[in-house]
């Protein structure tokens, strides 16, 4: 069970990383640094993803915080 939970978190982290990269990082790759706009987009994207996870968790009747 703990192992499944762990696997779930890994998968969640991967999906989150993938989704926020898609939403925040321009795909022309003009240079190899993240610019300021991208960085703050990423921070907010992670925060909002987290909120969606919690919101959905409540709807599903999870009583432990995610």
């Amino acid at each position, binding site marked *: 069970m703990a192992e*499944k*939970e762990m*696997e*779930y978190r890994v*998968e*969640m982290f991967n*999906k989150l990383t993938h*989704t926020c990269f898609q*939403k*925040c990082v321009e795909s022309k790759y003009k240079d190899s640094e993240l610019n300021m706009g991208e960085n*703050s*987009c990423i*921070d*907010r*994207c992670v*925060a*909002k*993803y987290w*909120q*969606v*996870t919690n*919101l*959905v*968790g409540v*709807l*599903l009747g999870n009583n432990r915080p995610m």
Partner: protein
Amino acid sequence: IEQLQVRDSLRMYNSLVERCFTDCVDSFKRKTLDKQEETCVRRCAEKFLKHSMRVGLRFAELNQGAPTPD
């Protein structure tokens, strides 16, 4: 029973979150969900759950060789 497990699985949870986030959240000017995004996520999640329950029922019927509704 199998379908119930599937439906309740953590994987389903993850993919529900990803889908509803992708469909409902597109602005990153703030770090908290606004009212509209929250409503969208709620509806999306409820629809997805109803959808996946329906799919589970149909899937179970097909697994048992039952006739499908037309």
